[in-house]
C-alpha cells in the first residue's frame, strides 16, 4: 500500500482537513469503548457528500484497501475497529436532516445524523412526532443504530429499528450509488416495498456490503403523556407468560426488564418496567390499574417508585452508558441476545452464572421487541479500561455468553468478530453459502469491513 499516494488522493476528495493518517487520529479510530482489542487503522476520512463516498470507495476498490464505515462508533462490540486496517470512514460530517414528512411520518436523514440531533429537531419543529432512538448516548447515529438491528424506544410496539427503515441510499464498492425502497421508484421515501426488498442485505451486515449515505426511517405519533408502571417479580419462570399477557392488552409502548445484584436490595428480583402513554391522566390511571391487576394475577407485585426514579427511565435517551462507571473503570460491553420469550428464565440463569464466575456483579436486562415477538436480552460486563487483565476477563465472559446464548436458541446481536464466527458455525450451510455468494458478487475485492461476517 502506497500510504502517501492514498492519503493525497483522500485529501483531494474530502479536503486536507478531513483526511488523516496522523498517529493521534489513528490511535482514537483504532479502538472503541468496548472490550475488543484495538487494531491499527491506516487512515481516517470524513466525507461530506455521497459523491465523496463514491470517490473514496472507487479509490479503495482500486487499491484494495479496506473500508470501515463508522457512525457513532458506540456498538461496543468493535464493529468499527479496522480488523484488517485500512480506511475508517467517519460519516458524521454528513449530518443533514433532509426531510420530515409529517403525514406519512418518516425522516430522511444523511448517515451522520445523530439520534440526539433528530430527537431535538423533532421536539422543536414537529412536536407531534417521535423518532425511534436507542438507549445509547445521543451521539450515536440514526443510521448506525437502525443498520445493526438496533432496538430502543418504541421497539416493543413497532419492532426493532431495522424494521423501521423505509429506504436507503447506498454506495457499493464499485462506486455506484443505489437507491433502495420506494425511493427507487418514487420521490417519496415512504416504504420498503412493494418491490423486491434489498434493504435487509444492509441490516446487521456491519458495513460488509456497502456504505449507507442516506436513510429514511419511520416516525411515530408522540402521545401527550407517558408514565411508567413498575413491577417486581421473584420467580423468572413466570416472566414469559406475564410479559406475553401484557403485550396482549396492547397498552405497553415499551417494556423493559432489569436484573441487578447491586444494590443489595435488588438482588433476586426482576424489575418490570412498562411504559404507558395516554392523552389524559385518566387514561394513564386506567392503564395503571390494568397493569396492577395483571401483576397481581401474574404472581408479581406492583411497585411504587419515587418520581425521580421514574424520571430517569423517562429520559430520552436513557443514560445507559452509566454502566461504564459502575466500577469507575470506564468500560462495559454486553451480549445482547435476541431471544424468543420462553428463553427468558434460562438466559437469566446463564447471565448470573457467567457474571459470578468472572467476578462481575450481575447486570442484566431486556427490551421487548415487536409486541412480544422477541426480546433483546442483555448481559452486561463492566470492566476497568486501565486493567488489561480485567478487559481480558470481560472478553472471556462475553465469549462464554455468546456460546451459551447460541446453545439455547438465541442469537447474539451486533456480535463482535469472534461472536460472528460462533454464529456462522451454527448457521445453516446454505445460508452461509448465500451470504458468501452475495458478498463476493457485490464486493469482489473484499474491501468492505473485512474480518466481519467472514465465511471461511
Amino acid at each position: 500500500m502506497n500510504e502517501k499516494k492514498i492519503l493525497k488522493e483522500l485529501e483531494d476528495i474530502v479536503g486536507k482537513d478531513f483526511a488523516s493518517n496522523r498517529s493521534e487520529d489513528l490511535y482514537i479510530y483504532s479502538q472503541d469503548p468496548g472490550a475488543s482489542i484495538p487494531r491499527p487503522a491506516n487512515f481516517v476520512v470524513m466525507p461530506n457528500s455521497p459523491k465523496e463516498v463514491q470517490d473514496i470507495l472507487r479509490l479503495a476498490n482500486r487499491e484494495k484497501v479496506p473500508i470501515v464505515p463508522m457512525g457513532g462508533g458506540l456498538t461496543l462490540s468493535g464493529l468499527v475497529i479496522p480488523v484488517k486496517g485500512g480506511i475508517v470512514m467517519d460519516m458524521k460530517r454528513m449530518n443533514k436532516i433532509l426531510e420530515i414528512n409529517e403525514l406519512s411520518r418518516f425522516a430522511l436523514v444523511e448517515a451522520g445524523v445523530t439520534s440526539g440531533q433528530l430527537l431535538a429537531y423533532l421536539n422543536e419543529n414537529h412536536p407531534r412526532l417521535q423518532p425511534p432512538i436507542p438507549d445509547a448516548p445521543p451521539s450515536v447515529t440514526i443510521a448506525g443504530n437502525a443498520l445493526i438491528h438496533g432496538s430502543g424506544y418504541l421497539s416493543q410496539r413497532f419492532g426493532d429499528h431495522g424494521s423501521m427503515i423505509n429506504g436507503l441510499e447506498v454506495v457499493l464498492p464499485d462506486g455506484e450509488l443505489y437507491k433502495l425502497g420506494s425511493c427507487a421508484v418514487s420521490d417519496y421515501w415512504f416504504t420498503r416495498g412493494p418491490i423486491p426488498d434489498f434493504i435487509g442485505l444492509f441490516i446487521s451486515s456491519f458495513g460488509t456490503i456497502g456504505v449507507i449515505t442516506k436513510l429514511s426511517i419511520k416516525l411515530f405519533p408522540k402521545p401527550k403523556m407517558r408514565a411508567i408502571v413498575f413491577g417486581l417479580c421473584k420467580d423468572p419462570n413466570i416472566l414469559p407468560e406475564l410479559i406475553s399477557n401484557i403485550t396482549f392488552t396492547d397498552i405497553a409502548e415499551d417494556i423493559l426488564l432489569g436484573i441487578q445484584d447491586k444494590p443489595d436490595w435488588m438482588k433476586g428480583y426482576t424489575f418490570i418496567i412498562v411504559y404507558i402513554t395516554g392523552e389524559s391522566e385518566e387514561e394513564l390511571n386506567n392503564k395503571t390499574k390494568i397493569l396492577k391487576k395483571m401483576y397481581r394475577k401474574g404472581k408479581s407485585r406492583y411497585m411504587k417508585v419515587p418520581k425521580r426514579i421514574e424520571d430517569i427511565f423517562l429520559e430520552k435517551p436513557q443514560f445507559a452508558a452509566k454502566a461504564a462507571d459502575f466500577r469507575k473503570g470506564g468500560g462495559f460491553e454486553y451480549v445482547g441476545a435476541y431471544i424468543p420469550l420462553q428463553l427468558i428464565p434460562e438466559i437469566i440463569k446463564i447471565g448470573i452464572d457467567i457474571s459470578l464466575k468472572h467476578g462481575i456483579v450481575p447486570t442484566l436486562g431486556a427490551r421487548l421487541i415487536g409486541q412480544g415477538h422477541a426480546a433483546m436480552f442483555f448481559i452486561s460486563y463492566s470492566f476497568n479500561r486501565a486493567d488489561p487483565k480485567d478487559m481480558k476477563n470481560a472478553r472471556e465472559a462475553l465469549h462464554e455468553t455468546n456460546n451459551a446464548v447460541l446453545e439455547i436458541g438465541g442469537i447474539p446481536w451486533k456480535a463482535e468478530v469472534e461472536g460472528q464466527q460462533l454464529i456462522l458455525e451454527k448457521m445453516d450451510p446454505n445460508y452461509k453459502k448465500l451470504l458468501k455468494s452475495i458478498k463476493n458478487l457485490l464486493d469482489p475485492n473484499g474491501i468492505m469491513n473485512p474480518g466481519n461476517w467472514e465465511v471461511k
Partner: protein
Amino acid sequence: MTLKSEQDWKDIVHRCFRCGYCKFTYDYSDFNCPSYKKFRFETYSTGGRLWLIYGLISDEISWSQDVANVLYACSTCGNCSENCRFDKFNDLLVDIIEAARAEAVEKGFCPEKQKALIERTENPEMYNPYGEQNSDNENLKKEYNLPDKAEWVYYIGCTSNYRQKNLRDATLRFLKKANIDFTLIDEHCCCSPVMRTGQINSVKDFISYNIAQINHAGASKVITSCAGCYRTLKKDWLKYGADYAFQIYHTVELLNELLDEGKLKFQSEYNKTVTYHDPCHLGRHMGIYEVPREVYKQIPGIKLVEMKRNRENAWCCGAGGGVKIGYLEWSVEVSKERLEEAKKTGASVISSVCPFCRTNLSDANDKFDMNFEVIDLIEIIDKLDFEITDTRH
C-alpha cells in the same frame, strides 16, 4: 500540576467512556464543543482528548507536537464538564486537559504561539501576556485621585488595562461615582492565560506578588471587571495554595448588590434590545448566570433577549484556553457563530461582562460586518445617568 505528578489524574482518566455527551448542548440540538464542531474528528472531542491523555499516561502513544496541538485546540470553555454525565468526574475534565498541557510544556511540546504568553508574562518589563510595557497604574491613581490604601482594590486585569481601556475606564468612573473606597495596585498578570496553557512554573510567584500588593493596600475586598481574572483569583489561586483573607467580587456582583439594596438608581434609559453573552469563566466555571441578568433587567428601557444557547449551554466566544493566540482565525469564527445566534434574537447589542469576550466578539463583528454594538455591561452603565446613595461598603 502535571499528569504524572498528580496521582489523581492517572487514576481517573480512563473513566471516560467516550460516550459523547460532552459534545452537545443539554437538549442535543447542536454540538456545543467548539473544538469538535470545528475539527470533527473524534480526536478533538473531550472524550478523544481524554483517551489521548490516557494513551500518553499508559505509554500506548508518545508525545509529539501533533498530539500536543490536539490538546491545545480547545478553548477550555467547560461545555464538556457541564454535559458529561459521570458525576465527580465531569468537574475535572478541564483540569485534566490543563494538566496535560502542563506536561506538554514540561516535555517541550508547548506550541510556539502559546509560548509567547509566558515569555511576555515573565518579562520584567511587561508582566502581561500582551507584551505591553507594564503599567504600575500610578498614573491612573493620580488621574482618579485614588489613595494608597483603601478597603477595595480594583484588579484591572491585563485585557482591560492594555486592550479594553474603555471598559477599564468605565469601571473606574463607576467606582468613583459610587463612592467606593478603592485603589489600584501595581498588578502583574493574574496568570489565567499561562495557567490555561499549562505554563505554570512561575505561577506561584505571580500569585504571591499580587497578594502581597493587595495586602499592602490594606484591602479586604478585591473587585475585577474581568471574568477570567475573577475565576483565577477566586478558584485557581486557591488551587495553587494561595492563602488570602480578602473577598473577591466581580463588578456585576457589586452592581447587583447596590441595586438590591436600593442604593443605585438609574435616571436615564438605555432603549435598546440587548442579548447577554455568558462568559465561560463566569458562567460554567463559576456558576454565575443570573446576577448579570438581574442587573440588565433593572436598567430602564432595556429589552433583554436570550440567545438559544444560554447560561450552562452558552456557546463560547472562542477566545479562551490560549485559542485566541494559537488559532486566531478559528477563534474569531467561533465568535462569528455567537453573533449569528445573537442576530436571531433581534438584538442590536451584544453585551457581556468580560473584556476577553468583548475583544473576540468585537473582532468577529468587525471582520464579518455583523453590525452589532458590542459592549460590556459596565460600559452601558457608564452611558447612563444614575444616583448613588449611601454606598459605604
